[in-house]
C-alpha cells in the first residue's frame, strides 16, 4: 500500500506544469478516490472486527447475564468480572493447560511439519499426490474429525487401544481421554495432527524459494545432508519459520472445537484451557460478563504474539 502510493506520487509530472486551482481540484478528487477504495475495507473491518471487539470489551465490564438479553440492562461492574475470573480456582489450571497445550502442539506440529516439508522437497513418484493427501486433516470439519478421534481414543472399544493391546504394548486399554494425566496429551496429539498440513504447506513454500545453487555450492564445500540443512536450509528458512511459529501460537491459543469434541475440558478440568473455560462461562452458564473477561485475557495473550509476528514480518520485508 505504502509503496504503491509513493511510487504514484513520484511519477506525477512536475508541479509547475499545471495551474494551481486545477491541480488542487485534481488532488481533492484523487483523495476522494482513495477514500472510496478504502471504504469497503473500513466498513468490513468496523462491522465484523471492530464491533465484536469493542462489544466484548464493554461486556467484560458489565454484569451481562440472561436477563440482559430481554431487558437490555447490563449494570456496570468495573473490574469485578476480571477479579472473579482471575481468582477462580480454575484459572491457574486453565492457564497452565493453555501454555502446555500451545507449546506441545507447536513443537510437535513444527518438527513433524518441517521434517515432512524437507522430505517432500525431493521429487519422487507420487510425491505430489502424497503431499496433497497431507492436506486432508485441514479439509475435514473439525467436529467430524473430533468425533472420529474420540472413538479412536476410547478406552474400551477404541481402535488405538485395540491395536496396542493386540501388539501387547499395553495389557489393558489406556484411558486416553479419561485420565487426568493423559487427557491433555491426547488432545495435544490430535491437535498436532490437525496442524501438520499448515506447517508443511508454509514451510514447503519457504523451501522452494531457496535456490539450488546454494546447495550445489555447499556440496562443493563438503556440506551435504545434515550439514547442508544446518548451514543452508535453516538460515535461509528462518524468516518463514518465525512466521509459521507465531501464527501457529496465535491459532493454537484459541483452539476450542477439538477440545470440546474430545474431552469437553475434562476429566476434572485436566484439559480445560482459557478458551474452553471462556466458552463454558458464556455459553453453558450464561455468565457472559465473566466469559468475555476471560476471552479478553486470551486476546491480550495472543496480542503479545501478534506484535512479535508483526515485528518479525516487518524485519523480513526490510531484509
Amino acid at each position, binding site marked *: 500500500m505504502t509503496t504503491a502510493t509513493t511510487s504514484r506520487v513520484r511519477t506525477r509530472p512536475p508541479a509547475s506544469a499545471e495551474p494551481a486551482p486545477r491541480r488542487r481540484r485534481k488532488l481533492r478528487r484523487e483523495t476522494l478516490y482513495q477514500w472510496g477504495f478504502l471504504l469497503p475495507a473500513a466498513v468490513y473491518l468496523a462491522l465484523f472486527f471492530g464491533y465484536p471487539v469493542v462489544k466484548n470489551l464493554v461486556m467484560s465490564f458489565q454484569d451481562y447475564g440472561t436477563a*440482559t438479553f430481554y431487558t437490555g440492562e447490563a449494570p456496570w461492574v468495573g473490574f469485578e468480572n476480571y477479579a472473579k475470573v482471575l481468582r477462580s480456582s480454575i484459572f491457574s489450571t486453565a492457564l497452565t493447560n493453555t501454555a502446555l497445550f500451545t507449546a506441545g502442539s507447536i513443537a510437535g506440529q513444527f518438527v513433524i511439519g518441517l521434517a515432512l516439508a524437507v522430505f517432500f522437497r525431493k521429487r519422487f513418484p507420487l510425491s505430489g499426490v502424497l503431499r496433497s493427501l497431507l492436506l486432508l486433516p485441514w479439509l475435514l470439519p473439525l467436529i467430524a474429525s473430533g468425533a472420529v478421534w474420540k472413538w479412536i481414543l476410547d478406552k*474400551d472399544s477404541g481402535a488405538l487401544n485395540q491395536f496396542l493391546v493386540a501388539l501387547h504394548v499395553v495389557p489393558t486399554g489406556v484411558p486416553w481421554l479419561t485420565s487426568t494425566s493423559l487427557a491433555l496429551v491426547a488432545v495435544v496429539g490430535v491437535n498436532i495432527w490437525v496442524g501438520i498440513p499448515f506447517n508443511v504447506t508454509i514451510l514447503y513454500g519457504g523451501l522452494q524459494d531457496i535456490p539450488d545453487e546454494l546447495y550445489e555450492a555447499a556440496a562443493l564445500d563438503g556440506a551435504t545432508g545434515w550439514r547442508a540443512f544446518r548451514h543452508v536450509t535453516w538460515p535461509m528458512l528462518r524468516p518463514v519459520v518465525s512466521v509459521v511459529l507465531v501464527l501457529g501460537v496465535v491459532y493454537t491459543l484459541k483452539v476450542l472445537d477439538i477440545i470440546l469434541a474430545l474431552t469437553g475440558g475434562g476429566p476434572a478440568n485436566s484439559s480445560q484451557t482459557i478458551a474452553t473455560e471462556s466458552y463454558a462461562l458464556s455459553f453453558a452458564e450464561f455468565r457472559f460478563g465473566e466469559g468475555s473477561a476471560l476471552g479478553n485475557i486470551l486476546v491480550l495473550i495472543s496480542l503479545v504474539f501478534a506484535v512479535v509476528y508483526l515485528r518479525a514480518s516487518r524485519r523480513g520485508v526490510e531484509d
Partner: protein
Amino acid sequence: MKRNSLTVRAGLALAAIALPAVLTGCGNSTSASSNGDVKTLSVLDYYTNEPDKTVIGDALNQCAQKAGVTIDRQTITGASLIQKVLQQASSKTLPDVLMLDNPDLQQIASTGALAPLSDFKIPTDGFADGVLQAGTYNGKVYGLAPTVNTIALFYNKDLLAKAGVQPPTTWDELKAAAAKLTSGGQYGIAFDANATYEGSWQFLPFMWSNGGDEKNIATPQTAEALQLWTDLVKSGSASSGVLNWKQADVKDQFVAGKAAMMVNGPWQIPPLDKVQGLNYGIVQLPVKTAGQTEVAPLGGETWTVPQTGNKAKQAKAAEIVSCMNTDQTQLSLAKQRNTVPSKTTLAAQFSAENPKLAVFTNLIKSARARTGELGADWPKAATKIYTAIQTALTGKASPSDALQQAQNGQ
C-alpha cells in the same frame, strides 16, 4: 506511513457513523400489527429427533386446528436452544409458543421474557408437585409440561440371569451385582459422569435419596453417594469412560453388551426395542439401605407463552399451551413418546395401560425438580456437583474433599 494510518483512522470513524444506521435498519421488522385476526403462530422447540419430531408436530397441529390457526414451527438442537432464545429476546423476535427444558424455565422466566399462564386462566390443577415446582417462578406458573420423565436402572436380563444376579435394590447389592457382572470386556454398570449438567442430573437420585441437598453439597450424605460412584469406577465395575460419556453413549455401551446395567431414561426405550435379541428390564435406582424411598429428578419439557407484545397472538398461543396439556393430549403424547403424563390423576390409568413405564410413572409422583430449591441459581449448583464428581472419580481428591472444594469454589 503516517499518512496511511491517518486515512485508516478516518475511514474507521466514517464506518462507525454508518454502523448504527445499519444496525437499526435490521431491528425494526418485529412490530406486527396486533389486530384480533391471528392466522399463524410461530413455535420453537428442540425435538429434532424422530419419532418425537413428528409426534409433537402432530399434537401441535391438532391443537392449532382447534384454535383456528396454523403453526409455523422451527426445531433446533437442544444445545443451541437457550442461545437462540436469548438472541430472539434481545431482537424482540421471540416465538409465540416456546418449549423450554424444565431446569431452564426459571432462568428464562426471571428475565421477564415469559408471560405467567394465570394471565390466560390456564388451569394448573392435578399436576404432580415437581412439575409445578419446575414451572413456577416467584409464585407464578410460567410453563407446563404435558409429559415428564426421570431416570432408572436398566438391566440386561440375559446377562444377569447368566451371572445369577437379581436386579439390585440397595447400594451394597448394586456394588456386589456390578462386580459379579464385570468380566473381560463387559462392565457391570454404565452411567453418565460427564462434566456437564447431564452428569449432575444422573447423580441427583443417588444424592437426594440419601438425604443430600444442592444448597450445600459438602455433607456426609452427598459424600456417601459420591463414594458409591467412586467405588464403582475404582473397583473396575464401571469403566472410567463414564467421565466422558453422555447418556446416549451409555445407551450404546448397554446395547453393545459392554455394560450389564445402566442408568438412563425412558427416551432410550425406542432405540432399545429396535435391537434384536436385547432382553432388558427396568427397576428403580438402588437406595442406600432397604426401605429408603428413591427421590427421582424430574425431567421433561415445558410449553410457555413468551412476552411478544402481541396480545391477540399471546391469547391464541395460550390456547395451544392449554391444549397441549389436556388429559387426552397428555395420555397420547406419553404413550407415543414413552414418557409419563404430568398429571398425577392420570397415573393409575396410564400405568395400567403401559406396564413398561410403570417404574417411571411411580417415581414421578414424588419426583423433585432441579430448580425447586435454587430456582435460577440451579446451574451454579449443577456445575459444582459435576466438578466434584469429576474430581472424585479421577482420584484427585476423596469424595468428601472433592465436594468441599467444589462447594467452596467461586
